[in-house]
């Protein structure tokens, strides 16, 4: 067996799960360090996953999700301290304590464990005729727009440019999309009020972006900003 074959076999044994003990741990470290080995494991994982079709889904108890959210999103000690000192918090607590008997009984069923952040808009930006697809997450509290491209890229020698279209206003450029998947834009204060109910659009532009201040090429993807 060649080394490549041997690794392919070890990848199969790892993916199937039969490898054990120190061998499994050592192999996991190799996967993290060797992309070619990770690709072999992935190939087996993609093939083996079909066997999971025969595993019946089982709805987990609701408290599991609460525990996950508590672990990931529970307030840090600093935030707890500010909550502790917040007048609204104490007012809220006074009201809550009136309903305490009811609340106590249903506490274990409440979801999510930690309140969701407010003022977040999201958009799924996609087009019928293009492979470009991205998701956008806009935090109205700090004006930070974060982008994650899931598919597609600019054509060689061209750039993809992101635009905000608010109501009947002309599109305003939010910049050229970088090559990487994720990026973020700190939105100028003058535009921050325009995101709610706005539309994000991506156009195909000359390298470096439109020089006219308006889209010059085809609009390849659009998506409405939605309040979550």
């Amino acid at each position, binding site marked *: 067996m060649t080394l490549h074959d041997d690794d*392919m*076999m070890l990848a*199969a*044994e790892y*993916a*199937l*799960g*039969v*490898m*054990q*003990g120190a061998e*499994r741990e050592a192999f996991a470290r190799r996967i993290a360090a060797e992309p070619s080995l*990770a*690709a072999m494991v*992935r190939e087996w*994982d*993609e*093939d*083996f*996953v*079909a*066997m*999971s*079709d*025969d*595993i*019946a*889904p*089982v*709805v*987990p*108890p609701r408290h*599991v*999700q609460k*525990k*996950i*959210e508590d*672990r*990931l*999103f529970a307030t840090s000690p600093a935030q707890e301290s500010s909550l502790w000192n917040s007048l609204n918090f104490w007012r809220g607590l006074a009201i809550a304590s009136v309903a305490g008997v009811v609340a106590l009984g249903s506490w274990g069923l409440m979801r*999510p464990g930690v309140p*969701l*952040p407010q003022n*977040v808009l*999201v958009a*799924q930006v996609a087009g019928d005729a293009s492979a470009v*697809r*991205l*998701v956008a*997450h806009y935090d109205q509290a700090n004006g930070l727009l*974060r*982008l*994650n491209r*899931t598919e597609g890229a600019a054509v060689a020698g061209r750039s993809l440019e992101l635009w905000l279209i608010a109501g009947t206003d002309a599109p305003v450029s939010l910049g050229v999309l970088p090559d990487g*998947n*994720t990026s973020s834009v700190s939105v100028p204060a003058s535009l921050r009020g325009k995101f709610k109910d706005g539309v994000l659009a991506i156009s195909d532009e000359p390298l470096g972006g439109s020089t006219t201040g308006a889209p010059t090429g085809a609009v390849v993807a659009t998506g409405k900003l939605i309040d*979550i």
Partner: protein
Amino acid sequence: MTKARYPSFMTPHVINDLLARVALGDRVAFQKLYAATSAKLFGVALRVLKNRSDAEDCLQEVYVKVWHNAAKYQVSGYSPITWLVTIARNQAIDRIRSQKAGNVDLSEADDVADAGATPEQAVMQGADSDRLRQCLERLSPGRAEAVKACYMEGYSYQELAERLEQPINTVRTWLRRSLISLRECLSS
């Protein structure tokens, strides 16, 4: 045999977008992803761990990993469903390997596969199951069953050897041959 693997409301594209939003720290997307996938991943963990409490702890670890690693998913080359199922299986296998072997409580194992999935949780079907099924059918029946048992129950070579009452090296030799045959068939 063809199954309807992806209901129109929850395609791999949708899970892909949810993971992309999770990578941006979008907690609503994380909740939607959990609603759509947790029953499947809990089923996978239960199947390996055979204990509800362990499987619940495992599921927590799985979604904490999903939250932290969603950005890595995008560059991993995995299909979204395989990525999620693989995290759950590996977490469950690592967990059971770290426990003492041979402590399976059959009374708990019995209630593993009862609860059904709601429509929105019926999403997690792997791709290409017909192709794998055909290739498994080409192995002799006992060997195909052994491969499936290892995948579904998370058996190690040691456990498989004990169940089959054969020496571990013998089991390893023929399982490896089966895997070589499988790879040849899957690649053809």
